[in-house]
């Protein structure tokens, strides 16, 4: 058991025992060794279910939004104690945005922030394991740990190593904010932020011609089935009803999946995420059609940074990028 995991359990236990939190959200062992799953515990006895490993991919922030939307039962006093939550640096930035937008008051959450070097992509892990001749069963019994530049596991008594660079999630490779900024308690040592190209994912597209880009996206937008998984998993998509699709007073965009409507939907969503998307990558992870959504949102993030020196979730005191302006903002409009 890692030291961080130990500390998480300790804190969760104390918080629950003292009744300081309503419940605690963290990660538990998943269906296989390559995946962790979210868990909510409200009994201090259960804290040992909590784990910390490079498989803790999910952004748990979305549960906080759910919590805020809960309405107390008639006649019941609402329980306004904070919710305890385990966050990686990116997830914590998401919570900052929620603070900024008054969706989540600070006193309603107890944030355990964890400096993070990046999480492992379960599919890459699986592929890598397969390359080493490990079968499905073997993999199941692995326990992924982080050691220096490797992720390691044990399968049938044999130590297996996965080079970090090969199995990291793409978004983690491009991450330059490894340390949470806003938290109630931090576990683990501060990590030096790397100098990497944070917009690497859109470079290729940017180098393309207009026509090539049009073709690229045409193909992409055509395949969306509008299952809404991207919206559901996103902590920033907290509207009661999706503004683009809701029928009343009128529908901006049909729910039926065709290229035109899909493109409308995704571009508006991209506009809505300007200065808000913290690149947790959850949308891409859950998309059944492998739509490279980050290629939209990262472009938006890049422009917001380039034009307005604004990055999502870095400063809770700052006004959201579209809710403010400078008189001398860049003006290409003549």
């Amino acid at each position, binding site marked *: 058991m890692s030291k961080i995991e130990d500390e998480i359990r300790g804190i969760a236990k104390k918080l629950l025992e003292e009744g300081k939190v309503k419940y605690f959200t963290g990660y538990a062992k998943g269906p296989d060794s390559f995946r962790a799953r979210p868990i909510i515990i409200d009994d201090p006895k259960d804290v040992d279910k909590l784990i910390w490993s490079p498989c803790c991919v999910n952004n748990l922030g979305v549960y906080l939004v759910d919590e805020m939307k809960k309405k107390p039962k008639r006649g019941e006093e609402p329980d306004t104690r904070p919710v305890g939550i385990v966050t990686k640096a990116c997830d914590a930035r998401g919570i900052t945005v929620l603070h900024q937008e008054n969706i989540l008051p600070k006193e309603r959450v107890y944030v355990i922030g964890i400096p993070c070097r990046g999480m492992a992509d379960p599919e890459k892990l699986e592929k890598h394991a397969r390359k080493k001749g490990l079968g499905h069963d073997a993999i199941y019994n692995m326990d992924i740990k982080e050691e220096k530049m490797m992720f390691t596991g044990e399968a049938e008594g044999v130590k297996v190593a996965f080079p970090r660079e090969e199995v990291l999630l793409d978004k983690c490779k491009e991450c330059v904010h490894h340390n949470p900024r806003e938290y109630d308690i931090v576990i683990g040592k501060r990590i030096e932020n790397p100098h990497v190209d944070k917009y690497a994912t859109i470079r290729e597209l940017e180098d393309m011609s207009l026509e090539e880009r*049009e073709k690229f996206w045409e193909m992409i937008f055509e395949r969306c089935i509008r299952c809404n998984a991207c919206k559901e998993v996103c902590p920033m998509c907290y509207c009661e009803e999706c503004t683009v699709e809701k029928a009343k007073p009128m529908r901006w965009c049909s729910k*039926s999946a*065709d290229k*035109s409507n899909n493109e409308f939907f995704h571009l508006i969503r991209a506009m809505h995420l300007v200065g808000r998307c913290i690149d947790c990558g959850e949308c891409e992870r859950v998309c059944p059609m492998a739509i490279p959504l980050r290629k*939209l949102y990262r472009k938006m993030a890049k422009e917001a940074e380039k*034009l307005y020196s604004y990055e999502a979730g870095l400063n809770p005191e700052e006004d959201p990028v*579209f809710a403010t302006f400078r008189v001398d903002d860049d003006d290409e*409009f003549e």
Partner: protein
Amino acid sequence: MPEYEPKILAFLCNWCSYAGADLAGVSRFQYPPNVRIVRVMCSGRISPRFVLKSFQEGADGVLIAGCHPGDCHYSKGNYYTRRRLTVLGKLLEHVGVDPRRFKVKWISASEGGKFADVIKEMTENVKGLGPQRSFKRVDDDE
């Protein structure tokens, strides 16, 4: 088959740009009849949805015009517009929409000539690009 005539939808703020378009008329500045004007009170009202919807419904070009920065009748509406539409422009370009199809201009109440010139230039450009198909809605389910 007649020559292809593009359709351009223009959203103009009431106080400056719509007045500028009126002045073009009063001054009898001639411009191509390809533009249809939608009046809004302030360019700050323009949501990216208007732009995308216009393309979806079949616009070959979309023009937004408002008061010059600093001249806004509501003092700062156009500054928000400037941010939002600058980013929207980048997004449209990113997904392959030719930037000549989406224009934002600052046109004052005394710039009738500029309004006419903007329409002339845009009509010509969009004509050169041909019909906008990528966005256009095929079905008509609503």
